[in-house]
């Protein structure tokens, strides 16, 4: 589904990603861990299509197409979803209108009929229930005045509504209390199937108790320095990253 080969990216002439190789297949869950500033969010942003990054080398194939030449909205319509580490507040733009426009843009792209008001209402209610999102938040402007936890939950809510093929969760667990963490994990697990894939970026092993990864990668200084199974996360929790960087 996703094949990243030797990806090198810089920001303002500063190299951040220094040759990433990563392959994610349908049905898999990958976890990416790594110290602050190692490039995890940069990778997510580059995959999402945010401006301001320069690709110096390498390629990204998504379902066989060149991802990096697609505009951001096309990536979304092709089923890519990023739950951002710091979701932006958008005053004045109502949640429901926004989500409806997003879902219908995707459906239109896929040649499906757009949802009418009734269908949409039902889906919104169902997904809000799934991620235990307070419906009052839906009457508000996107993320405006949301608490840290509410913003994270809103990302997962949007993910649930958009039903992506590849979801990348950038520290969605940070700032969540333990109950919220379970709810988010349940939401993610409900989405899991053989046709889609998930990349979880996290600092904490505890999320991985709920969303069990097939493979864990360590990203350090712009490179994946180690990959392993779930036990790698436990080991990292125990020993930190120092032993990897030294090697």
């Amino acid at each position, binding site marked *: 589904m996703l094949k990243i080969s030797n990806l090198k990216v810089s920001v303002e002439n500063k190299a951040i990603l220094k040759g990433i190789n990563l392959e994610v297949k349908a049905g898999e869950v990958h976890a990416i861990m790594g110290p602050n500033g190692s490039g995890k969010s940069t990778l997510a942003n580059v995959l999402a299509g945010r401006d301001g990054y320069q690709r110096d080398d390498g390629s990204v194939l998504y379902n066989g197409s060149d991802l990096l030449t697609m505009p*951001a909205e096309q990536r979304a319509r092709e089923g890519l979803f990023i739950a951002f580490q710091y979701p932006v507040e958008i005053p004045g733009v109502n949640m429901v209108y926004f989500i409806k426009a997003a879902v219908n843009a995707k459906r239109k792209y896929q040649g499906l009929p757009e949802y009418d008001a009734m269908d949409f209402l039902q889906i919104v209610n169902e997904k809000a229930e799934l991620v235990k999102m307070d419906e009052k938040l839906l009457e508000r402007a996107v993320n405006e005045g949301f608490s840290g936890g509410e913003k994270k939950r809103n990302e997962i809510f949007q993910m649930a509504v958009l039903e992506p093929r590849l979801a990348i969760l950038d520290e969605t667990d940070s700032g969540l209390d333990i109950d919220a963490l379970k709810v988010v994990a349940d939401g993610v697990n409900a989405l899991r199937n053989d046709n889609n894939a998930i990349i979880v970026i996290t600092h904490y092993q505890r999320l991985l108790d709920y969303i069990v990864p097939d493979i864990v990668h360590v990203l350090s200084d712009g490179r994946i320095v180690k990959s392993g199974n779930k036990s790698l996360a436990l080991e990292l929790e125990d020993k930190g990253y120092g032993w990897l960087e030294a090697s």
Partner: protein
Amino acid sequence: MSTIPLTERMHKTSTALPGQDVAWLQQVRETALLTLSEKGFPHKKHEDWKYTDIQPLLEQEFALSDSACIGLLDEDIEHLFLSLDEDCRIVFVNGRFAPQLSAFNHDKSQFEIINLAKVIDTRPDLLQPYLARYANPAEHGFNALNTASINDGLYLHVFKNVQVREPIHVLYLTTAVDGLLVCPRNLILLDNHAQATVVEHYASLSQTNMGHVSMLVDAVSETMLALGAKLEHIKIQQESKHTSHIASHTVLQQRDSHFTSLIISTGGKLVRSDIHTRLVEQGAECELNGLYIADESQHMDFHTFIEHAAPACTSRQDYRGVLDNRSRVVFNGRVYVHKDAQQSNAGQSNNTLLLSDKTEMDSKPQLEIYADDVKCSHGATVGQLDEDMLFYLRSRGLDPQTARRFLIKGFVGQVLQQMQNSLLRKRIEQWVNQRLHLDDIQQEALQ
């Protein structure tokens, strides 16, 4: 209709004005005329007119309309109604009261609404304590010109303790008449604890194909809010781009009164809008909001002036707008806190979205504070749409065009959503969205 260049106009008064036999009114007009001929019209050397050049306007010829309005029917102006069954609507066409287009179906025990010319003819004593007592002709030449030409407009008096629920619609229409001068004069009086919403609405009929038609609307409004009175005043200025619009509104606020003003300017060629509130007794509050949408070569200039003249008064300002093409907008927000006005609280913000790099925005806060125990804040931003917000919307599948439109709509929506009456708000949102070409964004998701 004989036209006279504005600069010469200052030496003449028309003989067709109502109430020539009312001595005090004639006095008011003559004093204004004298002020005008002594001080003239403002020019760019005046600090308050630095960015707004009215010279081209002064060279043109203008005259008040001397013919009553032509055969317009309700259906010709229906698109400008706030709702199809308006309770109370007073309509003026080219400055003259149009009874056949007006509707007075309100409860007459709540308030009195009459066109000013009629009050002048029949009961001028009603006006004497108020008319031209608040607005100062010396403020600038256009104010003086209006005062010297007082002829018709709104007289509204809301009685004590009455809460008027439906908006009162005051509609000033202009048809395409080259050299037309309209001098609306409005007087709004709210007795103790009265509440009302007034929509002062300026619009043109036939917006297109007008060739070299040029018109001037020179409006003056005066408002007096007595103890505990509450007025929501919405001005919608959506005239054609052949019309210049210069207006001032002076408001006197007594104890615990509350005044909310929302000025929405989307039309006009050269627009100048002044609002001056005087908080003269404790506990008075005002909110002055504005929304400007300018494009092509439109020029708009907004001056607010809030005078905190008594302790413990609050003022808020939120002016925002969207500029495109070569348009230019000025916002000058002045707050003056008198020496005795302790515990004043004044906040001001001005935010502008620029959609083209040829626009110009001049934003100037002017805080003059002579009391020591006050809270004052101000902030201004001028810029393009936020890249992070755009990206967020796109990352969910919205194309850049739609994402931009969502953000613009959200930006202007923040000031519109402060309107309390939801039907009125929807109507006005509709006009604003049409003006921004946003009306096709599907936003009725849950309806």
